[in-house]
Each structure stands twice: as C-alpha cells, then as structure tokens.
C-alpha cells in the first residue's frame, strides 16, 4: 500500500495562510468584457467578416473619393476611344492588356484607336467613357440609394416595431395585420408601382425601397420588444414611474441594438439588389447618371463581344453583396452569446 512510502518529515504540517493565498492566486480569471467589447473581439476573430469589413471600407473610400478624384470624367464621351478593353499598366495577360480578338486575330485595340499612351483599367464603354470611373460613380449612386433607403427603413421599421410591440393588444394586432397585407404583395411589385407614381429617378427609388423594406425590421424589433418588455428590469423601470419614451431609449433600444445592426447589414444588400434590378429593367436611374444596375444593363447588351463591360460592374456588385452578407453573418455570430467558445 501507498502508506508505507517514507515521506519527508514536515509533510504533514497544515499549510500556512501564505501557501493558501498562493494556491488561490493560481486561478486565472477571464478578463471581464462589456457586451460590445466581447462582440467586437469575436467579430475580429471571424476572418470572413473582418476581410469583408476592410473591403467594404476600401470600396466606400474609392466610391466616395471619386467625387474629388476620378481617373477620368465618368460622363465624358469620346467616341473615338469607344469599346476599348481593359488595360492595366504592367499586366500582360490577355483580357487585361488592351488587346482583343478581331476576326480571329488578337490585336491591340489601343493602337488601333490611336490611344497607345492611355490606360483604361476597366476599358471604355460604347461611348468611349472610362468604365472604371463609371463603375466608381455607379457604385457611389448604388451605395447612396441603399444607405439612404436603409436609414429611412431603419427609422420607420424600428419605430413601428417598437410601438407595436410596446403597446401590444389591439393596436399590435392591427399593426401586424397591416404588415401581413404589405407582405402579401411581392416587394418589387410595390416598388415598381410607387416609382410609376413618383416618376422614375433617384429620389423615388429611395422612397420606394424605404417604404417597402422596413417590414422585416419592424417584425424583428416587435418580436424582440415583446420579449424584453417582460423582463424584470423593464418592469422595475415602469414601477418606478419612468415614462414610456424614456424606457424605450434607455432600456429597449440598447437591447435591440444587435438585432437592428444585424438586420441593417442584410437590408443594405437587398436595397442594392432592388436598385440594380430596377435599373436593369429600365425604370431606375436614367442616363447620363449611372448605377451598378444601369452599367450591368449596358454591359449585358454587348456581353457576347465585349464581356468585360458587364464583368466589371457585375464583379463589384457581387463583391459588395457578398461583403455585406458575410459581415451580417459575422455580426450575428458575434452578437449571439450562444456561439461563445
């Protein structure tokens, strides 16, 4: 048996207070983080979401920076340089070196047009406008439309949802019925009807998208409000006689913030998508203005012969959509305490 082993003499002295303190101090406590800090830390760990955030940042800076600095005037027509393919300095890959296949032979389109010294990194369109500048310009318009529309729908949706959830009862039932009716018509149909009434243009697109896409936000906020309303701390605030408005701003909104932020990340790409679809159909932005949708529409006409004219705007559109979706996913995971490792 083990008890026959000879042990040092002082082995059986009770441990001292110092020793005990040392034992206790070995425990490592996790640093306490606030909810936001914790979410931010987890977002940074999510590689997809983090890269998306950076890419979106770059796209924003370039799109809005082009207001002050643009390689070419996006609307400057130059028929002699029409339909030049992509030419990126220093890159000698077919498709990016200013050459294209004409009658079975690869020729330098820039030389033909007498523009050997010029570079259009995304090429030019059928009117000789610089595609890169137009894509930047179009991205800016698309982003503005999406952001403004989202801002509106955020305001409408959050207010509607908060009110409906907070009031409850009859008011809530009626407000939910209204939402159900709106949901029973496809969004795009409503948007088209609204644009027809308001006359096509940027403002009416923004209004139309804003007026239709708040429903989702309203439903989410309502559901969350119903839940939070029953929480003890809200009850406590009510018992203490705080006004509804104060409770809404002090207790409800902070707790709704994650739902709102996440949903916004999904509203923006859907607004961009609607704008692109409208412009693609032909009732969106009209020329000489451009958006990603109109650029796609223009590019698609010549896709068989000049595929780059559609590829570039399509690529940018998909990257923006992808980045917002990934960021939204990442934020959802970051805000959801269940995914905490």
């Amino acid at each position: 048996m083990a008890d026959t082993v000879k042990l040092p003499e002082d082995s059986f002295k009770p441990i001292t207070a110092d020793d005990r303190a040392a034992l206790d101090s070995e425990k490592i406590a996790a640093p306490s983080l606030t909810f936001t800090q914790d979410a931010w830390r987890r977002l940074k760990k999510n590689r997809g979401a983090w890269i998306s955030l950076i890419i979106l940042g770059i796209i924003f800076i370039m799109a809005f920076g082009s207001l002050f600095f643009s390689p070419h005037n996006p609307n400057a027509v130059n028929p002699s340089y029409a339909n030049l393919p992509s030419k990126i300095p220093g890159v000698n890959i077919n498709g990016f070196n200013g050459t294209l296949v004409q009658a079975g032979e690869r020729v330098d389109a820039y030389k033909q047009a007498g523009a050997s010294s010029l570079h259009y990194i995304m090429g030019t369109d059928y009117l000789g406008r610089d595609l890169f500048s137009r894509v930047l310009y179009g991205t800016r318009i698309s982003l503005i439309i999406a952001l403004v529309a989202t801002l509106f729908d955020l305001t409408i949706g959050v207010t509607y949802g908060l009110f409906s959830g907070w009031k409850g009862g009859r008011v809530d039932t009626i407000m939910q019925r209204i939402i159900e009716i709106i949901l029973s018509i496809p969004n795009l149909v409503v948007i088209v009807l609204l644009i027809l009434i308001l006359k096509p243009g940027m403002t009416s697109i923004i209004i139309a998208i804003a007026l239709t896409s708040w429903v989702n936000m309203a439903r989410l906020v309502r559901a969350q409000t119903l839940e939070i309303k029953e929480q003890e701390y809200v009850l406590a605030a009510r018992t203490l006689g705080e006004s509804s408005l104060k409770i809404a701003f002090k207790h409800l909104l902070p707790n709704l913030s994650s739902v709102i932020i996440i949903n916004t990340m999904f509203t923006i790409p859907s607004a961009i998508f609607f704008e692109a679809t409208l412009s693609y159909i032909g009732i969106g932005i009209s020329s000489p203005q451009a958006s990603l949708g109109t650029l796609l529409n223009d590019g698609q006409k010549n896709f068989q012969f000049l595929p780059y004219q559609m590829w570039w705007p399509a690529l940018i559109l998909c990257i923006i959509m992808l980045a917002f979706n990934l960021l939204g996913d990442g934020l959802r995971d970051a805000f959801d305490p269940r995914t905490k490792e």
Partner: protein
Amino acid sequence: MAKYLAKRIFYLILTLFIVITVTFFLMKLLPGTPLTNQAKLSKSQIALIYQQYGLDKPVWQQYLLYLAGAVKGNFGTSFQFSDQPVSYLLSSRIGPSLQIGLQAMILGVIVGIIIGALGAMRQNTWVDTTTTVVSILGISIPSFVLAVLLQYYLGLKLGWFPIAEWGGFIYTVLPTLALGATPLAESARFVRTEMVDVLSSDYIELAKAKGLSRMGVIYHHALRNSLIPLITIVGPLAVNIMTGSMVVENIFSIPGIGEQFVKSVLTNDYPTIMGLTIIYSFMLCVVLLITDILYGIVDPRIRITGKAN
C-alpha cells in the same frame, strides 16, 4: 382546424380586397392615359375610347365596376393591346411562369436540403465550408447576373441549351437554374443552421444511446426535425422567385407574366399592371396559406392548438 381555416381564408379575401382597392386608386393617381402613346385623335374618337374603357364614369363607379369584374377574374382591357382583355393576356402567359417558378422552387429546395444537411453532418470540414460558400454566393449573386452568365456560357458558348426561346422542357433549364440559385442557397443555409441545432439536442443524444446507427439517427430523428421549419421560408422564397422572374424571363425571352409585367410598366399599360399585381398577391397569399396549413399538419406541436405562431 376548420375554424382556423375559415379565419385564414377570410383574411386572404380581405387582403386581396385591400390590395385591389389600393392598386386601383394608386393607378388613378398615375399620369397618362391609354392615349398618351397614340397619335392625335379627334375629340369624338377620344370620347369613344374613354367610353370603351369606362373612363367616362365617375371614379367610384369605375372602382365598383372594377371590383365586380376582378371577382370574376376580369381585369379590364389592356391599353397596350387594345383588343385583348387583361385576363386573356395573363392566362395565356401564366403557364410558362408557373412552370419555371415551380421547377426553380423544387430544384432549389431539394438540392438546398441535400447540401445543407451534408454541411451539418460534416460540420467544420471541407464539406461544410463548401456548403457555406455555395450558400453565401447564391445569396450574393443577383439572379440576373447569373442568368446572363448561364445564357452566355452554357447556351451560347457550349451550345448545350437554347438561349432565348420558348418551347419544350429544354428551354426551361437555364431559366430554372438562374431562378433556383437563390432558393437553393437560402434553403441550404437554413437547413444547415437548423440541423446543426437539432444534432446537438438531447433527443439526438438519446437516439444515439438507443443504439441507432449514424444514418438511422439522421434519417429518423434529425432530418424531420430540421426540415419542418423549412416550410416557413417557402413563402419568402416564392417572393424571391417572382421578383427574379421579371428579369430572368426578359433575358431568356420567356412569354411569362414576369416579362409581361416589365413590358407593361415600360408602356404604362395600367390595367395589365393592376391585373398582374392582383395575380401576384393572390399567388403569394395562397402560398402563405398552404405553407401555414402544411406546417400545422407536419408539426405535431402546432396541430393541437391549430394556430401557427
């Protein structure tokens, strides 16, 4: 259940009534008349045409007439094709749209289920990563971009499918693919999330403790529990397909209602736009009703109370 059904059908009718009313008066606000696109006509000719369309009557009378007509499926006469009633125009065009829409839905949901379930079963492996990539791409790439790419590469370059015609099944392949991508991605994502949740639940643990094989656990317990909630996203997916069809039908020159809608919008053919709006919301309402009832049938927890909530 019967009571619930009656209530739901009442709401459906009420919703359609409101949709008809709102569209009617919105259309009255619109600028332009059927004659905007016509050459100069004499006063008597205009009066005649107004009479033909019933535009000479007071608005409330027009509304009642329209409502009475709509109940019977009569949405007036198209402005664009002055000899065609809207109902005829639509009924001749709804077939292709339904075919492509249903095909896209079935393809998307079935493939989505398979991909999503595989992703959940092989969580955190390359299979799962592929699932995630496919679903995020499918959600991010607009259907019209995909449609153009499919048309060019599979249709024109490889010549596998006809490009922009309408005929037999082969003509529906590309549009179905273009429209089905988003439902596929959405359902794959949904099924994966649900199934990951289900697989970590206690009753799956119990099923394993019973000695069921891996496939037995998946087939008898995990699959059913993860697929039931999928019914709730069929409605939104239907909206997605309807929206997508407007552009996709245009790209592939399909004589469907989506293509007609765009055409009508561009030519200010208000009676047709109204008719289509009503048709679209009718279809959506029916889909939502069916999915709600279906959910009640397949989920025992809802069956008893008879209320989906």
